[in-house]
């Protein structure tokens, strides 16, 4: 078995072929069933009762969002999804990242109204109850804040968990009303090329979205992962704009206005625009470019013993579906294609996996995604050369984790 497991790929990555060959030998013998009457304690006394809403095991308290908020305004800040502690592709609703500028409003759905006006034939308003009678669609979609991973623009690599670096990205099953139905009901005028969406939060965050996208695949989401939206995710309703920057997914949505131009609000001019080395800034950079990150092993984790480790991570692209993910254990000299959990969906997290033989050697782990449009992730150095270090938004460069001889994982630029 050992000889079969000796990887010929770069620095220990085990391709599928090695896996198959070594498969049988990899099985660890299960412990003998019941040796004597040494029973698990739970078998000898009655367990706990029922709960109206289930909670995670008390042993999983560490699986929590990291928070960074303004010291004078606790509702202005972010909380990151702990990507390093999660598996699969769906983010539990209570761990979905948050980015609020004016805190979470407490909204009574019976009082909430959605208005649609501006360049329409008939300005209209709906109650939540009325919207609940419209046709619904469900899609699993990621949402990523444009400011996700922004520490990687810094000159020095930040040392924190994968989630606290890249966890302003989460993925949920969203259910709601196709926005198109509401826009058609009000009757968009010919010149209506932009949709202004406004939240009912302090500061009334508002954003402009081209009508083409609004009519194509946007959703007025009322459910997340099977239940109604959480307050911090926009209860009772938010916009979902598949594959586009998080800030466009306006939460606590209460007003839609059709217009022939964007509103040029603060959040599409002074912020969420990407400053380039020339001094010019990219504006309305809506589409999330292909991106991936290895969540295990990742910084803060420790490889305790030598042997085979299961490298696992997430890949996504706002342009379409993930086509392939390659992983390198030697800093990008050689790459091996990882396996993808299916089904692979458009504008959705995709889980990738590859086994890796760690013999106690130093290693540089990287992942690189290519989507079905052919777009792929640039090396960080290439991205920084093109965009400079003051863009703040839209970082999608390749991320590198270093494993040292002691099995410690850290974040490096390499």
């Amino acid at each position: 078995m050992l000889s079969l497991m000796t990887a010929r790929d770069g620095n220990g990555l085990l391709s599928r072929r090695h896996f198959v060959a070594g498969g049988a030998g990899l099985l660890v013998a299960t412990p003998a069933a019941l040796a004597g009457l040494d029973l698990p304690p739970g078998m000898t006394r009655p367990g706990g009762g029922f709960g109206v809403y289930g909670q995670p095991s008390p042993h999983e308290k560490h699986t929590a969002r990291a928070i960074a908020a303004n010291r004078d305004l606790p509702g202005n800040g972010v909380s990151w999804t702990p990507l390093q502690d999660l598996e699969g592709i769906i983010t539990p609703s209570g761990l979905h990242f948050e980015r609020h500028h004016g805190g979470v409003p407490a909204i009574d759905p019976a009082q909430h109204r959605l208005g649609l006006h501006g360049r329409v034939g008939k300005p209209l308003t709906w109650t939540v109850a009325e919207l609940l009678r419209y046709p619904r669609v469900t899609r699993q979609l990621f949402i990523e804040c444009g400011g996700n991973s922004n520490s990687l623009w810094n000159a020095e690599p930040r040392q924190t968990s994968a989630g606290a670096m890249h966890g302003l990205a989460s993925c949920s099953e969203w259910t709601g009303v196709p926005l198109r139905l509401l826009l058609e009901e009000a009757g968009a005028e010919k010149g209506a090329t932009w949709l202004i969406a406004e939240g009912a939060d302090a500061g009334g965050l508002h954003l402009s979205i081209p009508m083409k996208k609004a009519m194509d695949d946007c959703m007025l989401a009322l459910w997340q992962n099977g239940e109604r939206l959480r307050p911090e995710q926009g209860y009772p309703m938010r916009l979902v704009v598949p594959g586009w920057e998080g800030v466009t997914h306006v939460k606590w949505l209460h007003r839609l206005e059709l217009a022939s131009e964007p509103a040029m609000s603060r959040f599409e001019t002074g912020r969420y625009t990407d400053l380039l080395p020339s001094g010019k800034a990219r504006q309305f950079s809506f589409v999330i470019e292909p991106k991936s990150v290895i969540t295990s092993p990742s910084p803060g984790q420790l490889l305790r013993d030598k042997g085979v480790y299961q490298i696992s991570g997430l890949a996504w692209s706002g342009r379409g579906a993930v086509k392939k993910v390659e992983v390198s254990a030697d800093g990008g000299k050689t790459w091996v294609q990882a396996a993808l959990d299916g089904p692979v969906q458009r504008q959705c997290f995709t889980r990738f996996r590859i086994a890796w033989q760690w013999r106690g050697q130093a290693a540089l782990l990287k992942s690189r995604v290519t989507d079905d449009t052919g777009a792929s992730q640039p090396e960080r150095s290439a991205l920084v050369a093109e965009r400079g270090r003051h863009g703040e938004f839209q970082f999608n460069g390749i991320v590198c984790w270093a494993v040292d001889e002691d099995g410690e994982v850290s974040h490096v630029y390499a």
Partner: protein
Amino acid sequence: MCMRRLALAGALALTTVAYAADLGRELPHTPLGKPLTAANVPTIWPDGRGLPAGQGGVVAGERLYAERCQSCHGERGTGGSGGHLAGRSALAGPNPDRTVANYWPYAATVFDYIRRAMPPAAPWSLTADETYALTAYVLHLGGVVPADAVLDARSLVAVRMPNRDGFVPSSEAREAGVR
């Protein structure tokens, strides 16, 4: 209309699998929107449409700023928990200032943002005159208007922001008519 659509959907169901996520398909439903009569629309456009009547100047703005803004933005906008509002370091330089005066393309946006978001403990609490005054003061901090400037809807929009031409729209925005 809906009966016809329902019949059509029924026929389709017999012959093909219909995927709900195909947003382009027929979705029979009763339109339930009620006429909207709201007159007060908060949007302020870059050309000044939506700006309210009223006026205010740098002098009044400085006084208001000391009372309601300085605790978070510092004396003369030099910074605090709310970030700095003054500062004009070159956008192409090593420490670019993305401040209002240095970065924002439209003066109307400044009025809009202060009115709807500042001070954070009481958004929408400033009067139109106060908002014009604070807008004038913030623009003055960045050297965009002189110390004796008084702004109203017309003169605010006449302020040409230094970085007005500093933005490159994405292809999606260009397709929707932004130059």
